[in-house]
Every structure is written in structure tokens, then in C-alpha cells.
């Protein structure tokens, strides 16, 4: 555990109630890193997201989900059953002393319990309620369901991921939820800033499908401006009709290489010079002027001249990379300023000398598991108010006493009664 002096003060003094499941947990984590007191409000028995793999030593126990650990570090936990009137009354008391509510229930769930934004804002006009929704809060998607797969599909990324001879495919690890969770943090801060000037909170609705659409970069305008569309094509790119490899095999894995001239010609020249020093660069590649070689000239190229160049480069580069390992290639690319990167595994990332030099990973003690685990550290380095990853994720209801007795001032008798009726 870090000392209080190391704690971030960027957002000290603010409190968030995090009711979200795996779709929104990263938002709460970001706020915890910024110094907000984030209280995870779990149903009795624990948040169902505690059942997400992987688990510590592969033991599927709700207190051992590494997925849950990763996105709840630094938060507190209370248990509360919103399905009971007692539980709802406790929640209302919490809202009165909080600044933010984060939730990812089906649309209408909280309203039906009398805990929608309008009701909560009557208890605390400053409250900001951030809701994660699959397809927004209006329109035909309002009542539709989506998980990670359906979000990638409806958001347009899957159609352009994968190979021509296979179905569209997704990334591992529920990435869509992280996009939505991190975007929820932006929206919540965008509501917070004016709230501090006017004293008035508001509602923030995150559209998870829209979060995926935004990751499509420049794709959306192609049909309208160029009259064509990006196609799913594995490791090949070709927005201008060319077929150009981006990922190449090497001795022990793969390398991603940007092959483009124009403003990036410095990299091509440095790369081909390196190949030439190893006597592996065809003469025409060493001699060609690459300064105009890029999408703009590809568009107007005649016949298959450019494609032939691309194919010849691919063959020479592949032969060159196969003589070396990922680490050897990357080390040399760093020296020569060549635009390439290894296809890293998590093992490669943990061995990064750059991340080590910046003390990126932060060890957190899990005393109950008898171990210390390194977590991704602060997502930014601030000169005045450092962010801090302050401690492991909480156990189920670990802070019930602290929150209900010390914060809300409930008596020991009231706490006991709430427990007996199953509200907490």
C-alpha cells in the first residue's frame, strides 16, 4: 500500500458510487486513480463480474477474479440490495453524500426502482449520473441487448477484421467494454466541470455502439467520398486499391512494419539502408526516390506497377526479417528510427525496458492470497498531482462498516437490522 502522502490529490474530496458491471468498471478505476473515493456498490454475495476469468491460480472464486482485480483496484466495496426498500433507502442516503453515480443496468431498471436521474437529482441536485447503454437511450436500439461480440459487430469493426476465407472476427478480452468505460470517464468529467461552476449536475449517457464506431478511424467516409469500402483482409491493407502487407514473420514471431513514403520516407530510407548494409536490399530499392511513394500517388498509378513494387518489397523484407528475432529487430529500429514494432505478447510487454525505466508497473499486495501482483500504473504522469494506483481491489462488502457507520452515521443496531433483512 502507498502512504497517504503519495495519494493523488487531483480529484481529492469527491465520491463516486460505482454500480456498474464489467461494462463500466474501468470508468470507476480511472476515477480512483485520480483520487476520487470510489465505492463499488455490489449486490449481496458480490458483483456478478467477479465471476469473470482469469482467476488467481485458475481458482474460480469471486474473491480471486483477476479481471475484477484489474478494474476495481483502489475502490471500496459495500454490499447493497437495491431490490429491497431498505436497500433503496440506504442508496438514497449514499447519493446525498456523493458526487457521481455510475451504472450499466438495462435502461429503465433504476427508474423502475425510483432511482432514476430525476429522482436522484431531487435528493442531490449536484449529482451526476453516468449510464452506459448498448445503443443509446433513445430510438430503436433502446431496448436491444448487446455483449462485447454484438457491439463489435454492430459498431462496424468486425466487418473489417479477419481474413477473406473466414468469418469476421473480434479481439480478445472484452475490449468494447473498456472503450465504453474509458469514454464514460470523459463524459463524466465533461459534466463535472460545469457542475462545479453552477452547482447543477446532469445525466451522461454513453452509447457503447458509438464507442466502437469511433475506433474505425477514417473508414466511415470512404463510401461517400471514394465510392468504395475498406475490405476485411487479414494483415494486408489497401484502402487505395493496393494490397500491402503490414505484418511480417521473423525468427521468433512477427513484426509490424509501416511501408510508406511521403512524410514517412525517412523510415523507408533508413530501413532499406540497414538491409543494404546486410547485403539484403535489392538495388532498385536502395536507389529509388521514396519521397512521393504513398496513397496519393498509388491512387493515380497506372496498371500494376505499384503492386509489383509492393510485392517485391514484401519478398525482400520477409527474407531479411527471418534472419533475426523480434527483440533484435526492434532494438535496431529504435536506433535507426524505423517505423516498425514487434507483435508483442504480454511477456514481451512485461520485459519492456522503457516501461521499467518509467516505473510503470505498480506492485499491489494481496495479503490474503499471500502474494504481490504488479498492475499497470498511472495512465499519465502529472507534475503537481500524481495519479496513484493505491491498493488492491476490495473484498465483497469490505467497507460496509466504514461506509455505513462512519460515513452515513448508522448505528450498530441499524447496521445489524439491515444485515438481518438482507439489505446489505
Amino acid at each position, binding site marked *: 500500500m502507498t502512504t497517504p502522502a503519495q495519494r493523488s490529490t487531483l480529484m481529492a474530496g469527491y465520491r463516486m458510487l460505482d454500480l456498474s458491471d464489467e461494462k463500466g468498471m474501468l470508468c470507476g478505476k480511472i476515477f480512483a486513480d485520480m483520487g476520487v473515493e470510489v465505492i463499488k456498490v455490489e449486490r449481496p454475495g458480490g458483483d456478478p463480474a467477479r465471476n469473470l476469468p482469469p482467476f488467481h491460480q485458475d481458482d474460480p472464486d469471486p474473491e480471486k477474479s483477476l479481471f475484477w482485480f484489474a478494474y476495481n483496484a483502489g475502490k471500496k466495496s459495500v454490499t447493497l440490495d437495491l431490490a429491497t426498500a431498505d436497500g433503496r433507502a440506504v442508496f438514497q442516503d449514499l447519493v446525498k453524500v456523493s458526487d457521481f453515480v455510475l451504472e450499466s443496468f438495462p435502461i429503465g431498471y433504476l427508474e423502475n426502482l425510483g432511482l432514476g436521474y430525476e429522482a436522484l437529482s431531487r435528493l442531490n441536485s449536484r449529482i451526476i449520473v453516468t449510464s452506459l447503454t448498448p445503443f443509446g437511450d433513445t430510438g430503436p436500439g433502446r431496448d436491444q441487448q448487446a455483449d462485447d461480440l454484438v457491439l463489435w459487430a*454492430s459498431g462496424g469493426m468486425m466487418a*473489417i477484421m479477419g481474413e477473406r476465407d473466414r468469418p469476421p472476427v473480434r479481439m480478445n*478480452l472484452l475490449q468494447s467494454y473498456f472503450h465504453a468505460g474509458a469514454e464514460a470517464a470523459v463524459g463524466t468529467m465533461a459534466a463535472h466541470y460545469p457542475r462545479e461552476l453552477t452547482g447543477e449536475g446532469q445525466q451522461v449517457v454513453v452509447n457503447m455502439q458509438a464507442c466502437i464506431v469511433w475506433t474505425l478511424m477514417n473508414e466511415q467516409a470512404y463510401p461517400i467520398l471514394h465510392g468504395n469500402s475498406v475490405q476485411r483482409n*487479414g494483415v494486408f491493407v489497401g484502402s487505395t486499391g493496393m494490397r500491402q502487407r503490414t505484418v511480417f514473420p521473423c525468427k521468433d514471431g512477427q513484426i509490424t512494419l509501416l511501408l510508406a513514403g511521403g512524410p514517412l520516407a525517412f523510415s523507408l530510407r533508413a530501413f532499406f539502408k540497414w538491409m543494404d548494409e546486410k547485403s539484403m536490399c535489392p538495388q532498385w530499392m536502395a536507389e529509388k526516390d521514396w519521397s512521393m511513394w504513398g496513397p496519393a500517388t498509388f491512387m493515380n498509378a497506372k496498371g500494376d506497377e505499384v503492386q509489383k513494387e509492393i510485392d517485391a518489397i514484401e519478398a525482400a523484407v520477409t527474407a531479411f526479417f527471418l534472419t533475426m528475432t523480434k527483440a533484435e529487430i526492434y532494438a535496431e529500429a529504435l536506433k535507426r528510427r524505423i517505423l516498425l514494432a514487434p507483435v508483442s505478447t504480454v511477456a514481451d*510487454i512485461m520485459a519492456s*525496458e522503457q516501461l521499467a525505466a518509467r516505473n510503470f508497473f505498480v506492485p499491489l499486495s494481496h495479503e490474503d492470497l499471500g502474494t504481490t501482483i504488479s498492475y499497470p500504473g498511472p495512465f499519465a504522469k502529472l507534475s503537481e498531482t500524481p495519479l496513484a494506483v493505491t491498493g488492491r481491489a476490495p473484498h465483497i462488502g469490505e467497507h460496509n462498516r466504514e461506509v455505513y457507520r462512519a460515513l452515513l452515521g448508522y448505528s450498530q443496531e441499524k447496521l445489524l437490522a439491515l444485515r438481518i433483512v438482507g439489505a446489505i
Partner: protein
Amino acid sequence: MDRRYAFEGIKVADFAWVGVGPITSKYLADHGATVIRIESHTRPDVLRLAPPWREGQPGLDRSQFFASFNTSKYGVTLDLSKPAAQELAKKIIAWADVAVESFTPKAMRNWNLDYEQLRVVNPQLIMLSTCQQGQTGPHALYPGFGQLMASLAGYYHISGWPDRDPAPPYGAYTDFIAPRFAATVLMAALDYRRRTGTGQFIDLAQYEASLHFLAPAILDYQVNGRVLGREGNRSFRSAPHGTYRCQGEDRWLALSVSNDAQWQGLLATFGNPSWGADPRFATQASRLEHHTELDRLVEAWTVTQEAEAAAETLQRAGVPASLVQNCLDLHQDPKLEAWGMFQYLEHKEMGPSPYEGHQFHLSKTPGELRWAAPVMGQHNEYVFKEILGLSQEEITKLTEEKVLY
């Protein structure tokens, strides 16, 4: 609320280029901040040189790639290699609350515009520097783009099929991760300054921010020694779960069944086929075990279906499902239309062009795409005359001297 926009009154000097920096400042611009985007003909933003372009014809002022990330901003040109331009940049800094830049770390130093020099001009300045791997460390000066960072940060390795090469996400994946963190922390720094009067420097490495999307795998590797790889469309909790071929050319349906209710919904949609009673499919755990056989049976039905209609029917039966939408589908999706996902803005050279709407909506101070991205130097006169108070003669002279260039 008596404010129209969340960040009205906030002033931003935007030296950034390409993806992460401009996307970060766009959040502020679309929510009311006055954002001055500083560019130069001597080193145009590489996105201005990248497609798609209006009518497919290249040109610095014709790229929608650039335009999408630079709505609601004022555009000026300054050749920062010239001392006179550096002085003007410092005047903008003196005016600004926030500076954003996204070059490799030495660039701003070379122009005498690094934080140590700028804080002298404006002690309360908040400056966000974002580059690939951070301002310090042995790899700090390494140039790169989001495609490479997506590879370096582990995302290529976990995309695609286990028996094939990676099937990377399209584009510069991490360029759409880092700005979410950058904008959040920038807004928090603004609020901290409002409370305390203290500005600060923010060093955001795209690498480090992006690794937060990989955190469970980082823990799994340490604790269990597992190196996360590609798993195709397999899920640890849902079966059937995948994309299934439908009628038509390259048309696919994504669907996902995670519990018994969804399973019953799927069977009802399929017309209660006899295999629905197969004991191998009776429970969710058993369906997970037999997912390969389920995939075959599901696809035997989907190939007879039109994907969009099948998705609608499944959704009505409570099953998460969607057409695997291609780009044209997105523009015709009624859900996205109701949300306002695509909006046409009038661009000075491109005319009406399609821009993306926002990913979150604020109920009382909604942001909006206030205007299209600027062409090169579009607001030179407005910014240097109205905001910085230069005379027309000075502006003409600086333009002739290619300081404003």
C-alpha cells in the same frame, strides 16, 4: 443550467497532430472551448495527406481523415522554425488555459516551446504532452503511429484466429484508446486549476494508457504464467457465440447466448428445431462444451436468412444479435441515426461531408459539432487580429515573410 457548453470560456493552444492529440482537444472544442489548432505548410499534419479525400482527389484541405478529428477548432498556420512564429506561439500560450502537443519529445524543445519555457510565459498553464512512449526513458524519442503502438502494446497478438497470423484491428487502434484517458485527465487538471490556481505538466504515453485495456492479461501472465493469445470468436461464457454466414455476398450475423432464457429465445426464433432438445445443449455449461457442433447448427439456419431481419427477430426474442455491419450499413443503421452518429457539416473546400457524432450525450450542456474542420490557415486573420490584437499590416507582413505559413 445557465451554460450552453461544458467548457465555454476555456482556451486551448493545440499544437498536436495526427490522432491522439487532436482527438483529445476535439472533446474540448466540441464542448465549447476556444481551440486554436496551430499547423504549418512546412510540416503538414500527415492526416491531411491521407485518404479518404473529397471525390478521391488528394489535397491538404480535402482529407476527411483529418477533418473528423478537428471539428469546432480554429485553424492557423505558423512556421514554428522561425523565431517570429515562436513569439506569436508564446502570445497564444499567454492567452491559453491549456496547451496540447503530440510530437516526439524533442520537437517542442527545438522550437523553444517546451513546458519549462512556456510556464514562464503562463505560470498557470496546463500542458499535455502525449507521444508514443512518454517524455522520458530510453525509447522516448522513438517515432510511431497507432498501428505500431497497437502491435507493440499487445493488441495485434490477441486479434484473430489461433491457427493464423494476427487479424489486426483496422487502423491505428490505440489512437482510439489514449484520447479517452488524455481528455479525462485534462478535464480533471482544469478543475484542479479552477480550485487551486495551479497548472501543471501532463506526460501521457500512449503505450502506458493503452495497457489499461490489457490489464487482466498482464495479471494472468504474472499469476498463472499464461500468455494471452487469439481465440477467434470463442467466449468463456457464451455459446453459441460468433459470426454466422447469411444470405447474400459477405453478409454475417453476430449472435451470443449466455443463459437459458436467451437459448429458449434462439430456439423459438429458429422455429424450435428438433436438435434444440438434444441433451448436449440442455445447459449453458454443456452448450459451451459443444460449441463447435452448435456453430454448425446455427449456421445451417442463418445461411437461409437475411442477416438484418434475423438480428431483429432474435433481439425481439431477447437474444443479443446484430448484423455484422459494414461501413454502408452503419450509415443506414436506424439506431445510429436516432443517436445522431453521422452528421454532415459544410467544409470550406470539401462542401458537405460526413462527420462522426459523439459517443456520450450530456443532458444539460450537450456538446455538438460546432463547425467543420478548418482548411490550412482558415482563421489566421480572426485569431491574430481579433484574439491576439495584431494589426492588418502586421498580419500582411508576417504572411509575406512566411511566418504565418
